[in-house]
């Protein structure tokens, strides 16, 4: 019997409890045990950024963290950005700018960009490019994604 344990995590404001093998990554816990398949499994060794979620508001790779290590930390996934059926202004900007094609990288992009804009509300283009450098996209060529993030930041600035 492989080492297993009961793990309780706080995900998107809910409590998720599951018995799983200790070697379960946060990524697999979210997808297989919490039923939150919005977080995508890409390379599963920290290169592609598709599995990016937020741990206490900071972007992290869910494949490079064991679920058993999260403890009291608050996890936010792409499902936690907006209520079901709704979109945040960042998500709407992605749609407006055609910042996705196949959509595989999009949850990771959104979680990284969301954390960026909270920390740096008015990033310049270089800062957006640097922040998103750890998220690979094979469809868009990145330009629409950068534009979406900058547009969202600008619109927030105009509103406030």
């Amino acid at each position: 019997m492989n080492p297993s344990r009961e793990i309780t995590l706080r995900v998107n404001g809910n409590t998720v409890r599951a018995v799983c093998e200790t070697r379960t990554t946060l990524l697999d816990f979210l997808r297989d045990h919490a039923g939150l398949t919005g977080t995508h499994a890409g390379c599963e060794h920290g290169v592609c950024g598709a599995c990016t979620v937020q741990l206490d508001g900071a972007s992290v790779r869910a494949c490079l963290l064991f679920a058993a290590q999260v403890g009291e930390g608050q996890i936010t996934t792409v499902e936690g950005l907006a209520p079901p059926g709704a979109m945040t202004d960042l998500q709407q900007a992605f749609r407006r700018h055609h910042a996705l094609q196949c959509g595989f990288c999009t949850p990771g992009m959104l979680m990284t960009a969301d954390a960026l804009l909270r920390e740096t509300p008015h990033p310049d283009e270089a800062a957006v490019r640097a922040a998103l450098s750890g998220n690979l996209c094979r469809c868009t060529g990145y330009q629409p994604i950068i534009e979406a993030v900058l547009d969202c930041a600008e619109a927030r600035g105009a509103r406030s």
Partner: protein
Amino acid sequence: MAAMAFMHYLPNGKVCTIPVMKPAPLDILPATSVAHALSLLGEHGDQARLIAGGQSLMPILAMRLAAPAILIDINGIADLRGIRLEADGSVLIGALTRHRDLERSPLLAERLPLIAAAMPWIAHVQIRNRGTLGGSLSHADPAAELPALCIALCATIELHSPRGVRQIAADDFFQGVFATARADDELLTAVRVPATTPAQRWAFIELARRHGDFALCGIALTADCSPTGAVTQARIVVFGVSDCPRRLPHLESAIVGSAPSPASIDQAMQSLDTVEARSDHHASSEYRLELLATLARRALRQAFGFDERTAP
């Protein structure tokens, strides 16, 4: 929901009830103190590996390059986190201090601007949010920035073991690819960086194909100067080129003794050390050596104010 989790649909149409896992089976033992971590290390020996931020170890586990039965998780040891100014002006950085904390520390920005300038070059933000100083030093990737910074800043590395505490100069800590002076029963607990003078010049440059990728070549340098501007001591460290960060002693000697000028830097470059350069699918050894010569010269020009560029 949990039961569903164990069902995977295989390409042949069958349902697999065993989850597909990247790492081999393992147990995680949280350590609550340095003494506890050392006792767990002693108890489990080579069955166990220490895990801090895990940003290098997790890929190793995922690819099963290592399959320890036990991970000793030191993330909960609060004593090992933090950046502190000591009475003698040195800066003590706990091994569990995350890269992002180094990046955003006002104390480091003021006291050790070389570290502050280099931090954004380390991996990507998601990695920096988890990765730790001690983890990077213990892992000793040849292309890692922090080992080179520690050497350039004359840092001392603190190791705890059941035999006591020892301090080792960063110069002597890195021994090769993923190889350090840390013994199996030792825990890297802190790094002490001596006080720097306002007269210290510094530069940091690296080149990677994409921001955040492993450096093909990088230079970290510090130079102490006399009131007249003459260089009294220099530490010029190259990383990403050889098996571990290497000082360039001939170049250092060539720059010491007078106040540098653009011409004297060009002259000093004639003394550039011979370095054994790695060759891999990212870059040939010849290319890395070309980069070394270009970036070392540029770093010297930057350090002494002859080049305004901050990035290669």
